């Protein structure tokens, strides 16, 4: 997914100004992908250079409107018809972080997992609040777009929590002694075990 695909999709409904496209892009994606207007105009300039969109002459207020070309429609149709592949997605930083934590000396991997579980659960709670108490509505299609994005974010968070729970079980089986002798410290927990001074370097020596 690129910004270009998003702009082409919005232009399918008719010509738009750059600012209009920015607002509609954010609305359609539930503000999960904020854009600045500079990004929008840079992308439009590139799409115009590549023949995907055509710019109209400036109106009385100096605003440029863009519309989809035949080539742009073809690109858009291709994008919608192809499944998203793993190569289209960025690497999962969390998976890499846990893998590195598991191989690095002196890192309490269960604590890394737990910190992430709390953060992801807090995020899921916030997303659930949005689902539970939806704000003022804009229009039918925008509501539907927002619900689709919101549900995607909720299910992604749920999946991450299931995976983290599974990681904890795997770590407990792999390192049972560490699991029982050193419960991970919790932020503000009543059950934080007595600890020596928190000197990271000390843990690595």
């Amino acid at each position, binding site marked *: 997914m690129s910004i270009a695909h998003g702009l082409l999709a919005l232009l399918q409904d008719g010509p738009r100004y750059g600012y209009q496209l920015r607002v509609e892009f954010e609305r359609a994606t539930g503000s999960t992908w904020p854009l600045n207007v500079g990004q929008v105009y840079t992308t439009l300039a590139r799409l115009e250079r590549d023949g995907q969109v055509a710019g109209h002459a400036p109106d009385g207020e100096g605003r440029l409107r863009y519309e989809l070309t035949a080539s742009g429609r073809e690109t858009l149709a291709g994008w919608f018809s192809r499944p998203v592949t793993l190569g289209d997605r960025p690497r999962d930083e969390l998976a890499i972080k846990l893998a590195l*934590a598991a191989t690095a000396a*002196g*890192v*309490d991997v269960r*604590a*890394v997992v*737990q*910190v992430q*579980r*709390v*953060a992801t*659960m*807090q995020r*899921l*709670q916030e*997303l*659930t609040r949005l689902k*539970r108490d939806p704000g003022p509505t804009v229009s039918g299609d925008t509501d539907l777009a927002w619900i689709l994005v919101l549900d995607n974010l*909720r299910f992604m*968070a*749920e999946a991450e*929590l*299931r995976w983290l*729970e599974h990681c*904890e*079980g795997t770590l*407990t089986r792999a390192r049972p002694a*560490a699991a*029982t002798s*050193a*419960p*991970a*410290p*919790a*932020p*503000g*927990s*009543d*059950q934080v075990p007595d*600890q*020596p001074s*928190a*000197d*990271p370097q*000390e*843990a*690595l020596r």
Partner: protein
Amino acid sequence: MSTALSLVEVDRIHGRGNAAVHAVRGLTVHVGVGELVAVMGPSGSGKSTLLNLAGGLDRATAGQVLVDGAELGELSPKELAKLRRRRVGYVFQDFNLIPSLTAAENVALPLELDGVRARTARGQAVQALAEVDLADLADRLPQDMSGGQQQRVAIARAVVGERSLILADEPTGALDSETGEQVMRLLRERCARGVAALMVTHDAGHAAWADRVVFLRDGAVLDDTGRPSEPESLLAGS
């Protein structure tokens, strides 16, 4: 926010000496009036013990368990049974409705066991069923209801009368995702009306409906999403 349920530095030890097993250890959990708190943790982390202690079904070896300000350890068996009947409602994964009783009879049962006249109990039961949108099914047997409807009857039974604390053990465990969400919405509505709820669940999606999620491990609180996070070192032994 006033507190409906407090467990303060609670230990529950089974057995003695070398054979002693700590089911929970130094456990501190508070649930405020109107608050929904979810509890998550692996098997053996103390979730069921926490629910049993909170409901007075098990006695703490050390520490305090308070329901509406009453210290359960100081109550006589008779007083404890009365408090359980009047103040605490239970919701289970498999609903635990009596198959031969109608929805209204199931909901009225705890009131009648507490000495409320049958006619009065029936009136309160029908009212409680109306609040979970099941007034039309008051005279239906559990076998003629869907899983979601049966769980709503169970929630009506848990809150009927003066009950102020709901203890729920995997209340969405036997339901599909959509019906589970309806049950969570209902629990939240009950909490918005002033009931406190403590819910054990394995389902992160349903736990996220709670105001706070408490994570247990090895019989103790590991984390609580309601607490502000603090910077910490994740390096072992630090």
